[in-house]
Every structure is written in structure tokens, then in C-alpha cells.
């Protein structure tokens, strides 16, 4: 049954897609200082990472505090296999496939010990895994080049198109296509038999088992697919930046930011995750960047710790998480079941008010 809200939402979806497709053109109309479309491809990469985490934490309900580690595994697989200092240089698209395989394998590996754990213990194991991955990347600096990072790494190669640092438009449309493909994949997965078992595990693991689902296997597959997507998103982000950055970039705070993408938008809802990526990464890459630029233009520099907008970032993220959990734990665009669960104690709304 399609309610008025659903139809409205799907209308908004097409409008949003149209705006996103036309954005590089719209951007040209804006004044020089306010242009931001070139910053959007990194949002798309993070949206793919968020969609991956959404499979693990949103659909299946396993709180994963180590998403950045899977991102890092994708980044470093991609970088090692495409960086000119190594003999492999397999190119962009094979690199993406390799990143996905490595991420999936890591997810599989981590889910073996966590399959039988529940709730917050899963969170702690993933958190510890994130620390271990960071440590390994740091200590194997003979391979990962430590804080220098690996660069240059492969840029996309398509016949007739050049991907360079000076023109973001090809990146924009390639990443948009990849993002749409990921959304399509997640949507179909969610409505497949597998996706329904993920949600069953999230809603009530015991009941799911009683219905004959092999819950360890269901979780294992969720971890593998979700981690593979995180790894691909990471590789896309790295390719865009032209470097693997450095191991400590993929720390706990990064994992929480990725988790915020899923939570702010609405756990388990694909559109919600896209919105979450727009808000979280957009805030970091666009709002804070523009704010800092404008402060510097007006002669206010970062000498005082309070004067730099970037220094307020974690305070704002933290407050957002706290307020969100208090007033709207289901996120801005929640999945229907999640909303129902989190509000089943609320007094019933008067008929017709909604």
C-alpha cells in the first residue's frame, strides 16, 4: 500500500537525482567562492562506504565500530596494486575488484570469531580489529610507506576521457554511476531472501533462528558484502585524492564518522544513508572548508584554538549523536520497522494528525 508519504518521497527522489545530475552545470552559475560541485565526488565515495556499513549495521543490526579499517584495507590493496613503485600496476577497475575481494575476505575473517557474539561485544571486537589494522599498516611501513602514503595511485581510465586533478567533471559522473549501481545493488539485496534474513536477524535473532535461519551464516554474508563495499568506497576515495593518505587517517574517529553517516540518515534506509553522507561529509568538506576560507579572507587565522571551525568538528559531531539518540534515534529518514520499534512506547497520535 503506497501512502501519501511514499509517493511524495519518490517524487523527491527523482527531483534530487535530477539536481545531482545537473549540478556541475548549476555550479557554473554560482559565484566563484560558493562553488562546491568539485567536492561532491568525495561525498559519493563516502556514500558507498556508508551503504556498505549500512548492510552490516543498518540491515543486520551489528554495530560495527571498525568501518575505517575496511576502508583502509580497500585503500591499501588498491594502492599497492596500482602504485608505480610496485610491479603490479593492474589499473583502476581491476584495482577496484581487488579492493572488493580483499575487503570481503577481511570481513569474512573478522566475522568468523564474532558470529556467535551479540550486541556490544560485536562492537568491541570490530573496534579492536580497527586498532589492529591501523597498527599493522603503520608497522609495515616498508610496504605502506608509513605517513608518506603510497602515491601516485591509479586514476580511472576510460576511452576518450581524461581524469585529471584540474577537471572534476569526469570523476563526478563516473562516481555517480558507480554510486547508482551500488544503490541498485543494495536495494535488490535488501528485498531478496538474503536481505529479509538480515532484517530478521536484526529484529530478533532468537526468533530468526527458531524460523530455521542459519544466523551465523546470515551475519557472515552481511559482513563480507558490507566490508567489500566499504573497501571499494575507500579505493574510490583514495583514487580521487591520488594517495593512500596515511594509516592514522583510518582511525576510530573515522569509523565513527562513517557510522554517523548511517545513523544520521536513518539506519537501514538507503536514501537515509545518502542523505547522511551528504550531511556528514558535506559538512566536513564543504561547510567547514568554506567557513575556514572565509575566516582567513577576513583576516581571522587559526592562532586561537577557538577561531578555527575545524576545531569544533568533534564537539558538533558528538552533540549531533547525543541529540539524535535522544530525540530521533531512528535517523532523519528511517526504515519503517526501525521507527516502529523505537517508538512503540510512545502515546498513540490522534487520528488524522499525521
Amino acid at each position, binding site marked *: 500500500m503506497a501512502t501519501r508519504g511514499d509517493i511524495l518521497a519518490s517524487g523527491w527522489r527523482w527531483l534530487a537525482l535530477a539536481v545531482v545530475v545537473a549540478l556541475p552545470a548549476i555550479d557554473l552559475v554560482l559565484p566563484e567562492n560558493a562553488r562546491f560541485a568539485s567536492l561532491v565526488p568525495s561525498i559519493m565515495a563516502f556514500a558507498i562506504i556508508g551503504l556498505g556499513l549500512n548492510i552490516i549495521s543498518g540491515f543486520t*543490526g551489528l554495530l560495527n565500530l571498525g568501518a575505517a579499517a575496511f576502508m583502509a584495507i580497500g585503500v591499501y590493496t588498491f594502492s599497492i596494486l596500482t602504485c608505480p613503485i610496485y610491479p603490479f600496476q593492474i589499473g583502476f577497475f581491476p584495482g577496484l575488484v581487488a579492493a572488493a575481494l580483499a575487503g570481503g575476505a577481511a570481513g569474512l575473517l573478522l566475522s568468523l570469531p564474532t558470529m556467535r557474539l551479540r550486541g556490544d561485544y560485536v562492537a568491541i571486537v570490530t573496534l579492536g580489529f580497527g586498532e*589492529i589494522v591501523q597498527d599493522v599498516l603503520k608497522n609495515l611501513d616498508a610496504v605502506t610507506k608509513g605517513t608518506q602514503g603510497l602515491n601516485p595511485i591509479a586514476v580511472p581510465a576510460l576511452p576518450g576521457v581524461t581524469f585529471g586533478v584540474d577537471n572534476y567533471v569526469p570523476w563526478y559522473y563516473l562516481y555517480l554511476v558507480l554510486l547508482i549501481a551500488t544503490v541498485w545493488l543494495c536495494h535488490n539485496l535488501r528485498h531478496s531472501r538474503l536481505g529479509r534474513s538480515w532484517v530478521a536477524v536484526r529484529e530478533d535473532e532468537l526468533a530468526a533462528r527458531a524460523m530455521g535461519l542459519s544466523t551465523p551464516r546470515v551475519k557472515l554474508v552481511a559482513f563480507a558484502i558490507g566490508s567489500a563495499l566499504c573497501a571499494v568506497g575507500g579505493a574510490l576515495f583514495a583514487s580521487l585524492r591520488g594517495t593512500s593518505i596515511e594509516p592514522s587517517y583510518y582511525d576510530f574517529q573515522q569509523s565513527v564518522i562513517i557510522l554517523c553517516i548511517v545513523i544520521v540518515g536513518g539506519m537501514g534506509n538507503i536514501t537515509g544513508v545518502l542523505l547522511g553522507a551528504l550531511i556528514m561529509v558535506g559538512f566536513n568538506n564543504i561547510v567547514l572548508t568554506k567557513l575556514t576560507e572565509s575566516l582567513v579572507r577576513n583576516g581571522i587565522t587559526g592562532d586561537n584554538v577557538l577561531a578555527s571551525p575545524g576545531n569544533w568538528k568533534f564537539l558538533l*559531531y558528538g552533540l549531533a549523536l547525543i541529540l*539524535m*539518540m535522544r530525540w530521533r534515534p531512528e535517523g532523519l529518514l528511517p526504515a519503517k520497522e526501525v521507527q516502529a520499534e523505537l517508538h512503540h512506547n510512545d502515546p498513540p497520535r490522534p487520528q488524522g494528525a499525521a
Partner: protein
Amino acid sequence: MITWEIIVQLLITGLANGLIIALIALGYTMVYGIVELINFAHGDVMMLGCFLALTVVGALGGEAATPWLAIAVMLLLVPPFCAVLNWLIDRQVYRPLRAAPKLTVLVSAIGVSFVCVNLGMFWGGLPMEVFGGGTQAASAKSFPELLGYHNLLGDDAVVQLTYKEVMVAVITVPLMIVLTWFVSRTRLGTAMRAVAQNPTAAQLMGIDTNRVVGVTFLIGGALAGVAAVTAAMYTGSISFQMGYRNGLDAFTAAVLGGIGNLPGAVLGGLLIGLVRAVMEGWVSNGGQWSNTVVFGVLILVLVFRPTGILGARVREKV
């Protein structure tokens, strides 16, 4: 080559570090035992305590402060500050979510942790001399040497035992004894154990569970405050990111010993301290792998013995 001197030295360093970790772990384990919440902000409450300690020392003259006076003033101010902060966090953030799913509370605890980290960074920008005069807010601050490096075993002895290690033991061990007595012998302690076992039944017996939970957060915070003072003096360096690292160590200790179990937390803390000391002082290049070992141990324990070494609390709620 392994000599007995090396072993004794590792034991001394490991136990001193372990006692500090144990104090933080006690706060984790008490809170988890009662409200089943991994209080992510606990390590950051301790971190803010370190910044208050540094502020106090700075106000008393920094390096030139009289050591015993400075320690006394810090112990008088920092634990109450951390206790009240911890209590306020529970009151304002966690209590309204008591009936919500566990993960909701966990996520808001991460939020509190982020806020604390950011406040710690701002605090580091204070225009005081001990803070580097307000520049370089984000860099690590060195804590004034109040106790020095005088070797109590004689100037020529191979094994180092300074006033710092003695200070850690003198402050932490009696505190743990008092805590054990409090939890096992007093009325309030009994109420705490009752709430940990079964909150509903405890409430039916006339126990004000909200008050008991509040007291637990107060005590946990105070322990973190004492840990802050001792850790700042012992390690000689504080930074706004130390809360996460210390919190993880302490949480690992709590899980290792059996979460919810007080002697277990102390045992776990000592074990983690020893593991780190062995990795850093003995294994070549071990220091850079010590995190991997600690978290590897954590994962193994969770997988093979989720109740920890001493824990017997098996709770599978439907």
C-alpha cells in the same frame, strides 16, 4: 639475555601501569555491571581530570610546586570533579535512554566521548605557562616532574624504583581495598550488587535504582579522577587523545577479568600492564606491536571465554 634484574624491572613498571589501568577499569566494570553500558566517555572523563590536574599544578607554580602539597590539592580537587562530571553525563545523557535499546545508549556514549575530546583540546589552549601559553592547543603537554627520578634502591642499583612507583601503589592499593569493603559491607554497596543482579527485583525491594546508578557513576568517576592524577604524574605527559587509548586498555582489562567483576577488573588491569611492559621493555620493536597484542588478546578472550577470567555472570536476555 634474561636476567632477574630485567624481570624485576618489568614487574615494577608493569604493575605500576597496571594499577592505573585497573582503577579506570573498575569504573567501566561497575557501570557495566549495573546498567550494561560500555561507557565510552569514561576514558575521556579521566583525560579531562588530567587537564584539571595540570591546571592545578600550573596554578601552584608548575615545576616549582611543593610536591606533597601539589599532590594533596590535586587529589582533593580532581576526583570530585571527575565524579560530578561522570554523574552529570549519566543524569543528562544516559538516564533518559534507560529504556531504549542498548545500542542507542552506546552510540550516545560515543557522542559524549567526542564532546569531551573536543573540550580537552580547547582546554589545552589555555593561556597558562604549563599549557605552552596557549599555542599548540592540540599537542601533548608535558606534566611537571613533581617526584623526580631518584632511585630508592641506591644510585648504582640496576633495578629502578622511584617515588613515582611508590606513589602509584600508595594511592591506588588502599583505594581498591576501601572500594571492596564498600561494595561488600555497606548498605549502599549491597544495594549496588542487588541492582546489578536484577534491577526490577531490587526496585521491588524498595531500592531507589536511579540513586544507586547515580552513586555508581559518582564512584566510577572519582576512581577515574584518582587514576588521572596518578597517570599524569607517572607518565609525565598528557594529551586530549589519551582518553581513548586509556579507555580501551581499561575496557580490555575489564573484559579480560570478567566484566561486572571488581577483582577481575584489577586482575585484568595488572595483566594488561604487564603485557605492555613486556612488549615495550623486552621484545625488540615490541612497543609498536603492543596494541595489536592487547586487542588480539581481547578478541581471543571474547571469542573463547566471553565471561572473562573471573567472571561468572552469564546473562542471555531475550
